[in-house]
């Protein structure tokens, strides 16, 4: 997809003005976070599990090459294939190649953020292969030609009325007068439409929440069961995963699963936690005949050991989105690409370049809530600050803001200049602001567009203290 991250500010304004989106975001912020707290309360060892989960990932990242090699060997042993993709173009080409080898016309897809990252749908469509998203949210946004606005609830920005409207427009072969007022009827209609497609598909593509080195297994976590139909019905199953998704053992995978669903939706476990190892064996009743794994790097190996290393622990649970005041104010589309919220603001500049995306790390209050709720204890604010340092060094962003900051810093570093100039300034402002506050003030930026600005009392604390006032 075409990134619109450079239009972050206008995207954000659009999001704030969108009443339907605001209603959905308000529901989101009272949903997932509340359920997460309840799930944590039921599990006293949750904090210790977070440490374990972090340590597992750190150990894996420190030995990434080794575990990837073990994983590859195990997949081959189970009769599957492993393909290594350096970047998005590489991964798309590999996937198309596999589809062409089996003469695929249609491909069903489970929900996968990596497939969004590499924009494989667009690529397949342009090359004559029809991809069909089977996760309900993904299915809806595919019909609407929209990117996901949330990493686990991709259609969170839509109301059920908007979904009904989309279904009426797209499912034209169905009765026009049918009842689409309830979430249940919408779900049943999507299920009916998708059922035929599941059966007809030549290839099923899924992502992977994790892959396990010890067993050569890929894991998907879903609540709808669509992923299972995607990976077991077609003759060919392609798993697309990024290299940091590997964990050493089954035991490690279950530790991470225990923090994943609780952090994401507040469930103890997602409804379906499906483990796939290789193609169908002779004694199996069903399953794919061909099992391919595409392991994507796309810049990740360069993050190892650097200032964004910790981001490689991310398990895409969405807790940082669900608790972010900025995300909750503007929604996911404002970020302009497939990821959003604090994790998106850290990842997107690395994948799209900082020049057009510096507003993403810029737009954070540094409230620290994201780091507080991250199950993998990723220091998101620290990494957002790293991007800001790079943006500042590259002179990105508004010159007015840079100039203002530089002028202020110049003075603040020189107390003997700072004191009299500031004293004069606050005295002047106090004089104009005798009413106690300003409803408009030049140079106050957009501050006074939505709020008043309190006027200074008039004399600085330091000068009064020096004169002996107590």
């Amino acid at each position, binding site marked *: 997809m075409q990134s619109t991250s450079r239009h972050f*500010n206008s995207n*954000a*304004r659009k999001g*704030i003005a969108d009443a339907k989106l605001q209603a959905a975001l308000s529901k989101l912020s009272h949903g997932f976070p509340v359920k997460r707290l309840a799930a944590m309360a039921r599990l006293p060892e949750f904090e210790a599990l977070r440490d374990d989960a972090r340590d597992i990932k750190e150990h894996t990242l420190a030995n990434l090459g080794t575990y990837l090699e073990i994983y590859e060997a195990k997949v081959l042993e189970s009769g599957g294939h492993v393909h290594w993709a350096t970047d998005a173009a590489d991964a798309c080409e590999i996937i198309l190649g596999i589809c062409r080898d089996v003469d695929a016309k249609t491909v069903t897809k489970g929900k996968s953020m990596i497939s969004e990252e590499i924009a494989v749908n667009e690529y397949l469509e342009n090359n004559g292969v029809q991809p069909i998203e089977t996760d309900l949210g993904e299915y809806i946004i595919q019909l609407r030609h929209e990117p996901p606005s949330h990493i686990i609830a991709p259609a969170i920005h839509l109301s059920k009325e908007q979904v009904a409207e989309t279904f009426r427009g797209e499912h034209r072969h169905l009765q026009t007068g049918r009842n689409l007022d309830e979430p249940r009827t919408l779900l049943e209609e999507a299920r009916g439409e998708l059922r035929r497609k599941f059966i007809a598909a030549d290839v099923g593509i899924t992502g992977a929440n994790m892959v396990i080195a010890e067993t050569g297994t890929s894991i998907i976590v879903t609540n709808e069961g669509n992923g299972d139909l995607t990976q077991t019905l077609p003759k060919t199953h392609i798993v697309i995963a990024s290299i940091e998704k590997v964990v050493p053992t089954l035991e490690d995978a279950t530790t991470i699963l225990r923090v994943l669903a609780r952090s994401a939706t507040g469930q103890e476990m997602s409804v379906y936690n499906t483990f796939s190892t290789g193609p169908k064996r002779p004694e199996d009743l069903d399953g794919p005949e061909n099992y391919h794994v595409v392991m994507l790097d796309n810049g990740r190996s360069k993050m190892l050991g650097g200032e964004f290393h910790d981001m490689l622990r991310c398990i895409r649970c969405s807790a940082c989105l669900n608790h972010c*005041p*900025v995300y909750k*104010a*503007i929604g996911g589309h404002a970020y302009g690409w497939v990821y959003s919220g604090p994790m998106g603001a850290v990842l997107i500049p690395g994948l799209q370049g900082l020049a057009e995306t510096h507003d993403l790390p*810029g*737009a*954070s*209050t*540094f*409230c*620290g*809530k994201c*780091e*507080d709720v991250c199950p993998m204890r990723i220091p998101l604010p620290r990494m957002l*600050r790293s*991007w*800001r340092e*790079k*943006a*500042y*060094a590259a002179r990105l962003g508004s010159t007015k*803001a840079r100039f203002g*900051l*530089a002028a*202020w*810093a110049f*003075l*603040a*570093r020189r*107390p003997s200049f700072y*004191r009299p100039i*500031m004293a004069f*300034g606050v005295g002047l402002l106090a004089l104009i602001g*005798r009413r*106690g*506050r300003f409803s408009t003030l030049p140079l*106050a*930026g*957009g*501050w*006074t*567009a*939505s*709020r*008043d*600005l*309190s006027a*200074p*009392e008039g004399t*600085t*604390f*330091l000068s*009064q*203290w020096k004169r002996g*006032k*107590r």
Partner: protein
Amino acid sequence: MSDMAQKDTDKKNMDKKNVGLFVTCLVDLTRPSVGFATARLLEAGGCTVHVPDSQTCCGQPAYNAGDKVDAQALARNVITAFEDFDYIVAPSGSCAGMIREHFPALLAEDEKMSARAQGVAAKTYELMEFLHDVLGVSDTGTTFQGAVTYQDSCAGLRELGIKEQPRALMAAVDGLSLKELDDGESCCGFGGLFSVKYPDISGKIVDDKAEAIEKTGADVLLGGDLGCLMNIAGRLQRRGSPVKVRHLAEVLAGMTGDVPPIGETKE
């Protein structure tokens, strides 16, 4: 202040604590009353208060804007001005958090300053935690009639773990009743320069906060960080809300009769 006066007498024979008051740039420039309230509380708690004249700002605006060089220079300035005191106290979780949690990392590669940054960090406190945890103040002996609600500042709450201390001090104020905010641990949308650089987003977040404050039915919003309070006061006033806003130090020091609420005039 009978309790505190008693405490003061008790401490007469002990060495007084020398406290460097880091007043913060916002308090210094816009609301000195918070500085006087802070000094009064510290003195009543048995401290000798020092206010170094060379203090300006902790450097957080530069640090958060990615301007590391200026942030480091300002950090060095704070360290030089304050390192000789027994304690450094600021009426702000945000500025205390900057000194305590960020100075050591900011100056980690500065051979001369690294250890000094850690030394200063180790003795820096936000006012409420200092009163409660270090001085052992449980009752400031003040009266304040009214229902209040309280906004925890993000840095105080999450960087310094301050939550119980202001509540314990408020609970001891005669006549004060606390009505907690819904989703009280969420940010008010201030974020320093964030509020100026992204006024639309900041405006939306603070509007939600103002709504939550009004819902509590409280007459007054209290908090421990002037930046957050100016942001929220500005939005409440724009909404035409009757809720007044004050720094908790003003209430604890019994200064509410002398100083109008934030953004209001005396009458």
